């Protein structure tokens, strides 16, 4: 927003290139007020004053010019130090039409000023109108001259609270109230009422009523468009501007308690308002974030089968366990898919138990190792092939590459196991020898120990049965033994997997085929 100096009058140049001229009736040195530092007043080259008729002035524009004295290119003969004076007093060369337009603009602006408050936070708006009215009343005497209707400043608008427009605004207030039906909210009307009160008290001129009426609707409409853009800060600026022109002792009207406060007070008010608003915003965003999280937790709960937990923490616990078991299941199934086709060719003669052993091993590995199925697999394979050492030897290298980088482990183990196959007694020794090898494998933790226990149990079973096919899996041969083994193994596996989730238990239970 820029303040342009045209023909000795301050013309507000909005971003949209809508200058607004406000002839200030009241002499006032407001240049020192730095409350609104972000506005810059710049005098523009002299323009046809008539152009002002089509221009809007926004509140911030007005605010800006209030604080910055116009020293550049002052065509007007007025003293620039007396900023207000220059603004308020129409330049000698100003035409009556210009004055009228200014007046009309002011009045329309005034009207709009009254209207925006409803859209703004309650603090500033209530204060504005009364102040403005006071200003207007104060300046009404000056405004009389310019009250003549102007040809067109329909665009004038924005609620610049220039005192210049006081008179016309005051005049326009009653008319604005009539026209306020359009855009203004009820509060606007309320404010208008207050303005009316002051207006009546003001000696303001009554001329030019027609034009302000015409302009007010237009201004109101345009005002409405801009109101959305106006910020509370703007309203505060306007208030501040008004206070600049008004003498501090001005009585605050009904809601305008702080209006005559100095800059500091306005700053404090705006700061506290901003802080409270920031807190509100923070709370809102925090609430939104929590809502998002809760919604996602509900979705997660739906995905988890048999989840009847109402507590967030336990629900998340179950989600974690379920996720682990799901991962395990997928691993097992993919491994089964990958291995089974490979198992068929040529292995059946001596491998079915081994295959089952492998499957069992995998199952157990899955049950124990979760994400580390490779660990115990070689042990399983080795132990299961003990009764058939050669088979183990054959199986090792022929064992298909499972998806979990197992193969490299079984080979050395099976070779190692071969000499131990001679006697069952050596099994334990081999197991013992395997331990250090296994321990070299990373990720060997409790699951491995569990697996080892299971292996020993299997070995015991196998030793007891002393059958060539006494591996765990079910086959048509030696079913009784196998069943016994299976049950034993099942028990072992159950014990091992007791810490697993129910899902894993389900996986383990298949050993009891």
């Amino acid at each position, binding site marked *: 927003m820029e303040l342009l100096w045209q023909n000795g009058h301050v013309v507000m140049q909005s971003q949209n290139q809508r200058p607004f001229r406000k002839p200030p009736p009241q002499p006032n040195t407001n240049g020192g007020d730095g409350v609104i530092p972000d506005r810059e007043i710049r005098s523009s080259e002299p323009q046809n004053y008539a152009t002002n008729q089509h221009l809007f002035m926004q509140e911030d524009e007005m605010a800006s010019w209030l604080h910055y004295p116009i020293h550049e290119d002052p065509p007007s003969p007025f003293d620039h130090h007396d900023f207000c004076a220059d603004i308020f007093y129409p330049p000698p060369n100003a035409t009556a039409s210009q004055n009228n337009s200014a007046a009309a603009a002011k009045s329309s602006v005034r009207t709009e000023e009254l209207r925006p408050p409803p859209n703004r936070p309650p603090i500033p708006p209530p204060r504005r109108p009364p102040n403005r009215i006071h200003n207007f009343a104060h300046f009404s005497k000056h405004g009389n001259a310019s009250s003549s209707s102007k040809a067109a400043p329909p665009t004038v608008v924005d609620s610049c609270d220039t005192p210049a427009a006081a008179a016309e605004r005051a005049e326009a207030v009653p008319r604005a109230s009539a026209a306020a039906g359009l855009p203004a909210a009820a509060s606007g009307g309320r404010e208008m009422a207050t303005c009316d009160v002051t207006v009546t008290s003001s000696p303001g001129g009554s001329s030019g009523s027609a034009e302000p009426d015409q302009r007010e609707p237009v201004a109101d409409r345009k005002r409405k468009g801009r109101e959305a853009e106006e910020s509370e800060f703007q309203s505060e600026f306007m208030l501040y501007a008004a206070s600049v022109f008004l003498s501090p002792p001005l009585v605050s009207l009904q809601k305008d308690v702080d209006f005559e406060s100095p800059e500091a007070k306005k700053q404090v008010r705006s700061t506290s308002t901003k802080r409270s608003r920031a807190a509100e915003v923070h709370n809102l965003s925090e609430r939104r974030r929590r809502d998002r*999280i809760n919604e996602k937790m509900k979705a997660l709960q739906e*995905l988890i089968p048999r989840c009847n937990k109402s507590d967030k*923490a336990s629900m*998340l616990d179950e989600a*974690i366990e379920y996720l682990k078991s799901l991962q395990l299941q997928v691993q097992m199934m993919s491994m089964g898919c990958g291995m*089974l*086709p490979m198992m068929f060719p040529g292995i059946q003669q001596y491998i079915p138990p081994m*295959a*089952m052993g492998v499957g069992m091993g995998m199952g157990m590995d899955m049950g124990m190792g979760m994400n580390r199925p490779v660990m115990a697999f070689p042990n399983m394979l080795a132990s299961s092939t003990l009764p058939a050492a050669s088979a183990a030897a054959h199986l090792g290298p022929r064992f298909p590459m499972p998806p979990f980088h197992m193969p490299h482990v079984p080979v050395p183990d099976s070779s190692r196991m071969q000499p131990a196959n001679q006697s069952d007694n050596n099994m334990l020794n081999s197991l013992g020898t395997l331990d250090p090898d296994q321990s070299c494998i990373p990720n060997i933790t409790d699951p491995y120990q569990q697996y080892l226990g299971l292996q020993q149990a299997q070995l015991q079973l196998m030793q007891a049965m002393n059958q060539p096919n006494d591996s765990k899996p079910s086959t*048509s041969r030696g079913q009784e033994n196998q069943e016994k083994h299976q049950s034993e193994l099942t028990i072992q596996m159950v014990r091992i997997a007791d810490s697993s989730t129910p899902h894993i238990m389900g996986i383990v239970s298949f050993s009891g085929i």
Partner: protein
Amino acid sequence: MSSQRSRQHSGSTRISDDQIIELVSKLRQLVPEIRNRRSDKVSASKVLQETCNYIRSLHREVSDLSERLAQLLTTIDADSAEAGIIRSLLNQ
């Protein structure tokens, strides 16, 4: 869950926050996408979202694998060990 929340909103929030943080970190380790992102500031909602997606993808994978295993089952001897394995896998 909602009733507990409504009963003592702030209390449950206080208690749950730490637990949620811990559990969310666990989930982060499990879900490969988040684990590989190497970011310490993954929001809880993001983790939950990724977990849901991961679970759904795992479900899909399980169904795919089940389908394959079923096909395999038909190609092998029903009494074989492998069939047993497959059946067990499918019955999970």
